[in-house]
């Protein structure tokens, strides 16, 4: 009492008190500044990363196309006139494209130059013509015009990734090829169009034909398996450990081990999957089923730990209320505790799934790194996954795969973003006050 009275009265003490208050405010301001700086730095890094990915990758969403006339010569495609699908599929469409190119560049002579000028078009041109004929055999004998993809070097030149001003010896496109390209452009036969093929095709050796769909479907199938295995198993384990299991040395041991599992490097799970699912159970290599099981093992600890935290956070008063009404332990858990913990459980699970979506190492171990051109249609088909595709493309020599790598990363990030958005939505949806 007397102390307070003194600080109020003596001018010296009053000065010191004012000093202290000033210092306190200054400390608070400083702390907030530090926080703000920290936030800004992280945002800057994030922005830098996104900027570099987008600036490198956005060009992949466009593809240089060349407008060509093709005469669908019946004597080449179907000399017997049978219109048999097998014959149509096997026909020599390359010869048609050769003729088209020869028509565009009548002045080019010599085997080597003719080959080179043909190479300005992607092999995809042949595939596209075949697909059109297969689709509509009545076109045979007619003359059609269509946009076909240009070769990757042609494409990269137009996008400025191959520069014209370097000496010819250092350039992937020779002066002769430059002249041909310029003549095509002068005729208005070249255009950059939206790259639909990137979203509808599987992997390919030719960058201009390579797409992300195969990897995306592979990722989707893999994650579906992961979710179906790890979500129910994770919730059951968490609920049992948190609500039913006695607290003793054994459950402590289990808890410690689950925490340890969460910290195990993911490649170890890949080795485990290789040993157990492939070698012991004899499941097929490169299959989404195996990938999903391996990722489920990896995700399980995350789901268990976050679910337990969510269950722990349910206020004890709700449990008491339910027990007090004569609910059995199972009823308390099923009617009250789990529904209230659901937002947390879902958030944790989706974070776990997002981790699984970005995981590469364990998939490499079980062969999901193979070159798979076909889009997988089931859980046993060979497949890759998005991050593995990024890894494969990043490893490729062609200049055109650089932009595709960044584009694939963008697709992967978009998936992650959607999943996180979904987590936020679910949390809002299930959230209840108590």
């Amino acid at each position: 009492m007397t102390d307070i009275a003194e600080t109020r009265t003596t001018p010296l003490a009053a000065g010191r008190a004012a000093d202290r208050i000033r210092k306190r405010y200054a400390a608070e301001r400083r702390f907030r500044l530090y926080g703000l700086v920290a936030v800004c730095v992280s945002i800057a890094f994030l922005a830098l990363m996104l900027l570099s990915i987008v600036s490198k990758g956005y060009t992949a969403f466009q593809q240089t196309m060349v407008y060509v006339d093709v005469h669908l010569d019946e004597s080449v495609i179907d000399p017997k006139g049978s219109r048999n699908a097998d014959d149509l599929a096997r026909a020599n469409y390359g010869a048609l494209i050769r003729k088209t190119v020869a028509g565009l560049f009548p002045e080019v002579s010599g085997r080597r130059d003719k080959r080179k000028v043909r190479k300005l078009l992607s092999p995809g041109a042949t595939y596209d013509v075949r697909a059109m004929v297969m689709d509509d055999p009545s076109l045979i004998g007619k003359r059609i015009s269509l946009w076909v993809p240009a070769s990757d070097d042609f494409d990269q030149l137009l996008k400025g990734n191959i520069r014209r001003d370097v000496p010819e010896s250092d350039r992937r496109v020779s002066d002769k090829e430059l002249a041909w390209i310029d003549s095509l452009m002068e005729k208005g036969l070249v255009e950059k169009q939206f790259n639909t093929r990137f979203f509808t095709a599987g992997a390919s050796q030719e960058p201009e034909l390579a797409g992300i769909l195969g990897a995306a479907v592979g990722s989707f199938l893999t994650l579906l398996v992961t979710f179906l295995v790890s979500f129910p198993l994770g919730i059951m384990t968490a609920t049992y450990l948190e609500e039913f299991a006695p607290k003793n040395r054994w459950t402590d041991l289990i808890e410690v081990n689950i925490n340890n599992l969460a910290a195990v490097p993911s490649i170890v799970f890949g080795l485990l999957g290789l040993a157990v699912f492939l070698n012991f159970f004899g499941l097929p290599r490169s299959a989404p089923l195996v990938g999903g099981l391996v990722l489920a093992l990896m995700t399980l600890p995350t789901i268990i730990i976050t679910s337990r935290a969510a269950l722990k956070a349910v206020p004890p008063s709700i449990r008491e209320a339910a027990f007090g009404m004569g609910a059995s332990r199972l009823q308390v858990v099923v009617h009250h505790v789990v529904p209230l913990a659901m937002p947390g459980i879902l958030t944790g699970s989706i974070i776990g799934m997002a981790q699984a979506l970005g995981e590469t190492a364990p998939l490499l171990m079980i062969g999901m790194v193979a070159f798979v051109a076909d889009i997988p249609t089931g859980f046993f088909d060979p497949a890759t996954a998005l991050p593995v595709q990024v890894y494969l493309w990043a490893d490729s020599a062609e200049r055109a795969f650089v932009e595709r790598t960044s584009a694939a990363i963008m697709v992967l990030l978009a998936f992650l973003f959607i999943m996180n958005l979904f987590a936020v939505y679910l949390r809002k949806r299930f959230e209840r006050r108590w």
Partner: protein
Amino acid sequence: MAAVEQTIVETQPAPVPKITARSVDMYYGEKQALFDVDLDVAERHVTALIGPSGCGKSTFLRCINRMNDVIDGARVEGTIMLDGENIYDKALDVVQLRARVGMVFQKPNPFPKSIYDNIAYGPRIHGLTDTKDELDHIVATSLEKAGLWNEVRDRLQEPGTGLSGGQQQRLCIARAIAVSPEVILMDEPCSALDPIATAKIEELIDELKENYTIVIVTHSMQQAARVSQFTAFFHLGKLVEYGATENIFTNPTDERTQGYITGRFG
């Protein structure tokens, strides 16, 4: 022999005992929280448990509906009889017991569900009704008995957590009543409420004692004096004194009781 008889006489002021506790010892693991408690609770009366914080009032209350079963390492010795039946008997089903002995907690704890579902929960899990009409009837009468019907009749589907504190506590009382218990245990039901809400609950308790046996833990001696007919004073896990409320407050025999009532400790 004589000593035993004497304690029984002393602790039996009630007309008809509904609950009979005999030499109850209660342990939380190693720690003993109740020491040899003998207490009879009179049927259709209000019995108040008072005493300083941590003296074991809540612990004793929770022994009566075996809520302590849920706590790891909690253990009860002695007997507690409900209508002459030992509630700690192995053969007795704790779910049935809690349907007969309802409980209201210190902090209002409605389920985060609608008002209707809060009340209907007990009847549903105990299978008390067959039709929706019967359930509707139980919900309405329970809310009526808890004096809440007029306030919530138009918003039964709104969340119970949206009510005011006092209304929430009456909702919890209605929820307890819905399974037609014989005994209602209340652990400081008004300590989180304002004086007006408290007055309403006290009024309600007074009405409820016509039909239910009520045991209430309270921190407020005025409240004990207002609502209860019998009062038990606990101190350090022991039942120090038990008798008609007016005797305890006007003429306590034990000096610890005297000290607590006159505010010298607690």
